[in-house]
């Protein structure tokens, strides 16, 4: 008796460039490009039934919070119809999108795997020959691995790149390995060897109702402190449209006077200030200031943006930020 064939939803959000059999680079810029693209990677259909959905096609730097919300809504819409989801995405901003989905898709009981390619500069000498020989094996391998993971027993948002599956909220760029552009700050969610081996302590599939929380606040300013910086002068430059501020003070000891300035600024501008620093007790009695646990910088920014989309109450923000919602905290916090 045959096992029932799995169904995977493949969402296009950039990062889809690959090289065709006749050595042309092709990508999905609109819905009409999908059939030709799918024909080039028909091997994906060996693994599962694939239903493609066009979501977005802009460059990596134009994948805004609105696109994150759109992706989450598309997944919610189709959640009960598919066994898993694969999203093609450019790798430059993939950490932001995957982190956003980790927070927006709550009670997730199925895999959501992001993967894709970088834009390839066809003007590089030798690029055409390389494509003829390899037919852009990188993205094809990423896609095959991502689709395979999407049919496996997993219920997490992950990034598939090279020979590693990484948990979305624990992923950062790595310069040390040619095949693996990204690396994890914790344990791998999975590794590709002769097949795909998933971590034993991963979240397993479960029959739960997906809770969608797609609201996000995009007007957040990030200030990275350096020793001797005039914090007040820096803050006074900020537009009044900013809805929240993140201050990264891990390398700088904040003085009591600095804390007072920040409280005053927060009260006058009516903006919460999230502070990442070593000694969180400094903020215990501070009004309008919220301690930000250590996370990957992109992840902490996205979490703050997402939390502000859920509530404007300082006490509720404090609770949301304090809670380890998607295994986003580092250093065993």
């Amino acid at each position, binding site marked *: *008796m*045959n*096992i029932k064939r799995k169904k995977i939803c493949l969402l296009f959000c950039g990062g889809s460039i690959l090289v065709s059999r006749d050595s042309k680079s092709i990508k999905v810029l609109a819905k009409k490009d999908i059939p030709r693209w799918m*024909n080039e*990677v*028909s*091997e*994906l*259909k*060996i*693994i*599962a*039934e694939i239903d493609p959905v066009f979501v977005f096609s802009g460059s990596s730097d134009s994948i805004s919070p609105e696109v994150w919300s759109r992706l989450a809504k598309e997944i919610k819409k189709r959640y009960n119809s598919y066994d898993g989801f694969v999203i093609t995405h450019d790798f430059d901003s993939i950490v932001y999108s995957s982190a956003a989905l980790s927070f927006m898709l709550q009670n997730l009981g199925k895999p959501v795997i992001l993967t894709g390619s970088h834009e390839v500069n066809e003007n590089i000498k*030798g690029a055409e*020959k390389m494509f003829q*020989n*390899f*037919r852009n*094996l990188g993205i*094809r*391998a990423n896609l*095959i691995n991502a*689709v*395979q993971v999407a*049919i*496996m027993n997993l219920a997490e948002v992950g990034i598939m790149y*090279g*020979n590693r599956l990484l948990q979305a909220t624990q992923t950062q760029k790595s310069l040390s*390995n*040619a*095949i*693996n552009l990204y690396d994890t700050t914790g344990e791998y969610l999975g590794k*590709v*060897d*002769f*097949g*795909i081996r998933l971590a034993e302590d991963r979240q397993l599939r479960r029959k739960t109702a997906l809770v969608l929380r797609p609201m996000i606040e995009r007007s957040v300013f990030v200030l990275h402190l350096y020793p001797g910086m005039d914090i007040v002068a820096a803050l006074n430059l900020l537009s009044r449209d900013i809805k929240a501020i993140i201050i990264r003070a891990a390398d700088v000891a904040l003085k009591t006077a600095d804390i007072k300035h920040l409280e005053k600024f927060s009260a006058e501008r009516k903006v919460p200030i999230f502070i990442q620093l070593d000694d969180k007790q400094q903020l215990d009695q501070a009004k309008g200031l919220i301690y930000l646990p250590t996370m990957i910088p992109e992840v902490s920014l996205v979490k703050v943006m997402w939390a502000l989309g859920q509530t404007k109450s300082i006490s509720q923000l404090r609770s949301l930020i304090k809670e380890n919602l998607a295994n986003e905290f580092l250093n065993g916090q």
Partner: protein
Amino acid sequence: MKVYYLASQSNKEALKESQLKIKRLLEQSGVVVVSSLNPTGDMASSLLERAEELGQSVLDQMDALVVEGSGNDPEIGYLLAYAVSSKKPTLYLMEKGSQTRNPLVFLTNKNIPKNIIVRSYGGTSLEKILYEMLQQIEKSDFVEAPTIKFTLRITPQIEQYLHWKTHNTKTSKADFLRQLIIDEVIKKDEDYRKYRGRKNKH
């Protein structure tokens, strides 16, 4: 030659016997077999380590794939998809009478690429099927993609020659060298050909 052999998961004792027989026959042919029946063997571990060092996929280090696909196993589809994508020589075996659906039917136009051979087996046909496949690989009847990274430092004299030989042509220096090794070294090495001939006899 290195072969990765996937024996699909099954509870049927008779099928397990056939799967073990495939592994034995491959090993008797002189190929190095890395098998899902023994995933933590020494060879598998050393290949995995090497793949990590080189930042490569470990399957890329295999010369061919053999899949016994009579059981229901989601890894079959994965390996076949990899085989199609990478053009790796692949033998897909199914026991005669097996009810398992061939996942290759889901390819567009059901066009099975030339690098994948699909065979049903039964009785004593296994030996013949495996031998023929290994012969085909030896004769480079499959399209091979160069996937194994090999760093070679060359002298200025060699570089000068390679530049002279390949500039204004469509051939890269690496392609020129690869073809030179195949045509002028491997094919003309009588001792090596005799050695391969001995290995394939069983």
